[in-house]
């Protein structure tokens, strides 16, 4: 900023607030007092740069000001109240003015009462219950504690029938606040007011909100009188109320198109209003409707198209995105042209919204991908912030994934983008994608130039990512391997150690020319949890051992790293200071390791999601988490006692297995007082003789010693008696023995595991009609991770191949290839490969 401008700014501040510069002839005699207050007040609101009110200064100013209470000047007194409120947080001993304020509050001057009350509420909790003139305006008691306010329920009730519209509004708000935890009271209140009618549009809005909240909580049907009330508000005279009602209806879950219709037609009318706020509100709400019920909005398409040229850019953007959601395939071209003309004028936040709408459109009309791709690449070339560019890159990537025909164009656009991209995260993400998809294209060599340029030109993070991408090309394409090795040799001379390490590593792996090694080290990364690996390695270094370190003892990463969603690119760890947060699995591992009886079980393989063993709202709430170890399972029962007149002790959940599982040990929860959850454990050994019998049903009964106790004090009786409580059965299925693992390159992994223990069988799925259903059933039943996006069945196909990957208990990879054919029913040919024969047998046995 040029020096001249800076000076002007400083002068401006003083110009704005230097009262002595302007003589004011309108002031009444207490000028100095008023000016002091003005200055103090503005100082609080707008302190000059670098200065602020210290506590001592504020307190002193505050005391000085209290003398002004003597004056009879109305304005001065009112300014005093304002300043008290403003300084309540920064001065000490503010309550010294309580008595003066109380006097004003109960005094004869109308003009003082309201503001005095409000000031008083800000500085103290008024517990002295004198008459509280709720029915006069400007007396709204703010920030007061619940206990104090509830004494004035009667006054609030009266005030709710007041003629003054604002009083009505406040009274309603207050009553709701007092009663909101009692649903019955709220609905009684609503009934009363919806019948009696109100004068205040604000009160109506409040009522509509309360009614819709109540409808949502009680999951009321839309034939209830509450819904009728909201619907009748669509015909209210005041636009504010009409809009509130339309908005409430639109936001209700489970609305049918017929119920939405009146709301939508009202919004359509608003679209042509001369008031910008109304148009904005209408188009924003229509946008939300279009997300769930695009057909309901098509009637408004013409009005929306008119809004594209609206002078308010926010309205125009919302109109366009709504049209994108409801438009037909033929209108896509026209829409895209209209967007491109104005996208440079809207703010970044809206640009992201537009891109996301385009993304949704791409998924809806995959055939239009070339038009969209063109448009997106143009947007990519324009200026824009990081969020905007990232949204576009994500959109392009998702188009590439959905439409194999668009892959080459998409990758070409992305290559062009990284030539000149300042965002490391995006560059590395795209390089990662190139490494994955590029080798499979018809002419992979053209991508090598782009990638290698990055190695030469960019920052360390990008160079490292480029090296990894290059390696993938070398691993997959034998004819390119010699060239890649040469390039890799150059990378070994890089200035950054991460880049050199990667280059050396890949160089060595590639020189071996073995498919299995390539698969393990280049294509499919680590599937174990990183904190777990760190711990295991640390453990290993502490106890010297002859055996080499076994990766299988490391617990697997519980959240499968989804393919395109990794935000954090593969950057050298020295660049990323953040530590990976301990996962749920690590937490459980710690908890279980602290129990002495579970010490010798080995590493925790998998923990399931909690399973509820009681219905909601029963006396005791029990849920179970199944922890799988190499040869055992530990069942953790989290129990909560919801009866406040009982104390449970020595709580154990007794399990009766249906198969050959053997219950070894129970660890009871010592004590369960009211509402404090506790855990008890059962240790179970997996059957040795028949390793394929992995599923089992346990009937569970909770056994405990109960002592009655006084509900108020929690003191238990001395005596107790044994009791039991039957729980729901607990299922252990094959999914509990398998951990999901994503293999980005399934065929490489398939080759790596080898066919030593491969088995194949064919099944007829009798009860399944569609391929989608079959795929869904298999995935959920086996609990394995679908790979290569094979969980999506393309439309109108009669056959499909599903790839599943996982790790079986014990640490061996297990891969399933399921060929499905749709004929009369669905037939499925399952091929299973694993390093462990048991795993293969288990899978086939359970499917059969």
């Amino acid at each position, binding site marked *: 900023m040029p020096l001249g401008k800076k000076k002007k700014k400083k002068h401006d501040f003083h110009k704005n607030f230097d009262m002595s510069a302007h003589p004011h002839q309108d002031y009444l005699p207490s000028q100095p007092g008023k000016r002091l207050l003005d200055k103090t*007040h503005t100082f609080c609101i707008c*302190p000059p740069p670098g200065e602020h009110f210290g506590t001592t200064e504020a307190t002193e100013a505050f005391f000085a000001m209290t003398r002004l209470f003597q004056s009879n000047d109305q304005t001065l007194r009112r300014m005093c109240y304002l300043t008290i409120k403003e300084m309540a947080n920064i001065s000490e001993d503010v309550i010294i003015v309580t008595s003066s304020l109380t006097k004003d509050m109960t005094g004869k001057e109308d003009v003082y009462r309201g503001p005095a009350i409000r000031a008083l509420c800000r500085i103290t909790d008024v517990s002295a219950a004198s008459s509280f003139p709720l029915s006069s305006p400007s007396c709204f008691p703010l920030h007061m504690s619940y206990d104090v306010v509830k004494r004035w329920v009667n006054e609030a009730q009266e005030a709710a029938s007041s003629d003054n519209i604002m009083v009505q509004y406040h009274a309603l708000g207050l009553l709701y606040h007092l009663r909101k935890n009692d649903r019955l009271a709220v609905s009684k209140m609503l009934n009363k007011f919806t019948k009696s009618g109100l004068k205040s549009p604000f009160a109506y809005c409040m009522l509509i909100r309360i009614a819709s909240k109540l409808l949502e909580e009680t999951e009321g049907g839309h034939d209830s009188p509450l819904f009728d009330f909201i619907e009748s508000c669509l015909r209210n005279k005041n*636009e504010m109320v009409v809009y509130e009602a339309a908005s409430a209806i639109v936001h209700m879950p489970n609305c049918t198109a017929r119920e939405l219709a009146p709301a939508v037609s009202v919004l359509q009318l608003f679209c042509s209003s001369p008031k910008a706020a109304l148009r904005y509100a209408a188009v924003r709400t229509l946008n939300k409707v279009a997300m769930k019920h695009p057909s309901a909005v098509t009637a408004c398409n013409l009005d929306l198209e008119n809004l594209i040229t609206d002078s308010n850019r926010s309205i125009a953007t919302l109109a366009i995105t709504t049209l994108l959601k409801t438009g037909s395939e033929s209108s896509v071209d026209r829409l895209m042209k209209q967007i491109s003309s104005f996208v440079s004028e809207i703010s970044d936040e809206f640009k992201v919204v537009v891109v996301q709408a385009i993304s949704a459109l791409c998924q809806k009309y995959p055939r239009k991908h070339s038009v969209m791709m063109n448009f997106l690449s143009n947007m990519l070339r324009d200026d824009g912030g990081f969020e905007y560019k990232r949204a576009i890159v994500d959109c392009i990537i998702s188009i590439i994934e959905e439409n194999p025909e668009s892959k080459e164009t998409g990758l070409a656009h992305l290559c062009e983008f990284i030539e000149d991209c300042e965002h490391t995260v995006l560059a590395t993400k795209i390089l990662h994608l190139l490494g994955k998809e590029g080798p499979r294209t018809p002419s992979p060599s053209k991508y090598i130039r782009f990638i290698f340029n990055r190695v030469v030109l960019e920052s360390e993070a990008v160079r490292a990512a480029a090296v990894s991408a290059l390696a993938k090309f070398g691993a997959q394409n034998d004819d390119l391997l010699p060239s890649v090795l040469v390039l890799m040799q150059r990378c070994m001379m890089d200035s950054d150690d991460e880049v050199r390490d990667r280059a050396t590593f890949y160089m060595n792996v590639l020189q071996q020319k073995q498919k299995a090694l390539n698969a393990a080290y280049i294509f499919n990364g680590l599937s174990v949890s990183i904190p777990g690996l760190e711990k295991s390695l640390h453990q290993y270094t502490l106890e010297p051992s002859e055996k080499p370190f076994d990766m299988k003892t490391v617990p697997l990463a519980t959240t499968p790293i989804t393919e395109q969603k990794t935000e954090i690119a593969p950057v050298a760890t020295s660049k990323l200071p953040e530590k990976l947060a301990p996962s749920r699995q690590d937490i459980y591992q710690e908890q279980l390791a602290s129990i002495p009886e579970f010490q010798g079980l080995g590493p925790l393989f998998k923990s399931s999601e909690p399973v509820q063993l009681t219905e909601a709202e029963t006396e005791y709430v029990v849920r179970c988490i199944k922890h799988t170890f190499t040869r055992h399972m530990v069942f953790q029962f989290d129990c909560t006692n919801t009866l406040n007149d009982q104390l449970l002790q020595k709580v154990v959940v007794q399990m009766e297995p249906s198969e050959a599982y053997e219950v070894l040990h129970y660890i009871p929860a010592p004590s369960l007082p009211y509402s404090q959850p506790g855990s008890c454990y059962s240790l179970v050994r997996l059957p040795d003789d028949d390793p394929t019998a992995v599923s089992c049903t346990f009937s569970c009964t909770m056994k405990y010693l109960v002592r009655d106790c006084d509900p108020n004090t929690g003191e238990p009786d001395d005596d107790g008696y044994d009791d039991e409580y039957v729980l729901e059965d607990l299922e252990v299925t094959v999914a509990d023995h398998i951990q999901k693992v994503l293999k980005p390159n399934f065929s490489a992994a398939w080759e790596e595991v080898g066919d030593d223990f491969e088995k194949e069988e064919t099944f007829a799925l009798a009860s399944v009609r569609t391929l989608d259903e079959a795929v869904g059933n298999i995935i959920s039943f086996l609990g394995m991770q679908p790979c290569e996006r094979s969980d999506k069945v393309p439309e109108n196909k009669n056959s499909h191949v599903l790839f599943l990957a996982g790790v079986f208990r014990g640490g061996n990879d297990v891969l399933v290839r399921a060929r499905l054919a749709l004929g009369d029913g669905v037939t499925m040919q399952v091929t299973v490969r694993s390093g462990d024969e048991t795993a293969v047998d288990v899978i086939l046995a359970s499917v059969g």
Partner: protein
Amino acid sequence: QTEPSLYTVKAVLILDNDGDRLYAKYYDDTYPTVKEQKAFEKNIFNKTHRTDSEIALLEGLTVVYKSNIDLFFYVIGSSHENELMLMAVLNCLFDSLSQMLRKNVERRALLENMEGLFLAVDEIVDGGVILESDPQQVVHRVALRGDDVPLTEQTVTQVLQSAKEQIKWSLLR
């Protein structure tokens, strides 16, 4: 869905035509420090002072605004809020000030009448709750001018009466 509440306004701002703050009242801690507040004000000023569009969505908040000569008025609420309610607050503030400043809604007149502004805003919104939406009520309660009610606010009878008085005196001279 959010809990129905009376606390609907997040902030009321008045900026001059350089984007500098003349008046600012924040009712919650969306922007807890003065530094953050000023950054927010700069941002919304940049995005709104060129257009005359009334309403925008910025930094995830609904902003309704109005400008006159060299002043920019803003009322800020959450994006879930009823936009028309926020407009009602904005209009009430603007109309009340318009009356109090005798239609002279510009920076110099406002600076000369800051206490009127403080009291007016306090009557319209307190702690984030809308207290009043009728500009007449606000002007009445702020009641800065004791005796000399401006011409435009007097009733017809009063005007005629004072006109009669003036004619009488001029005739008598």
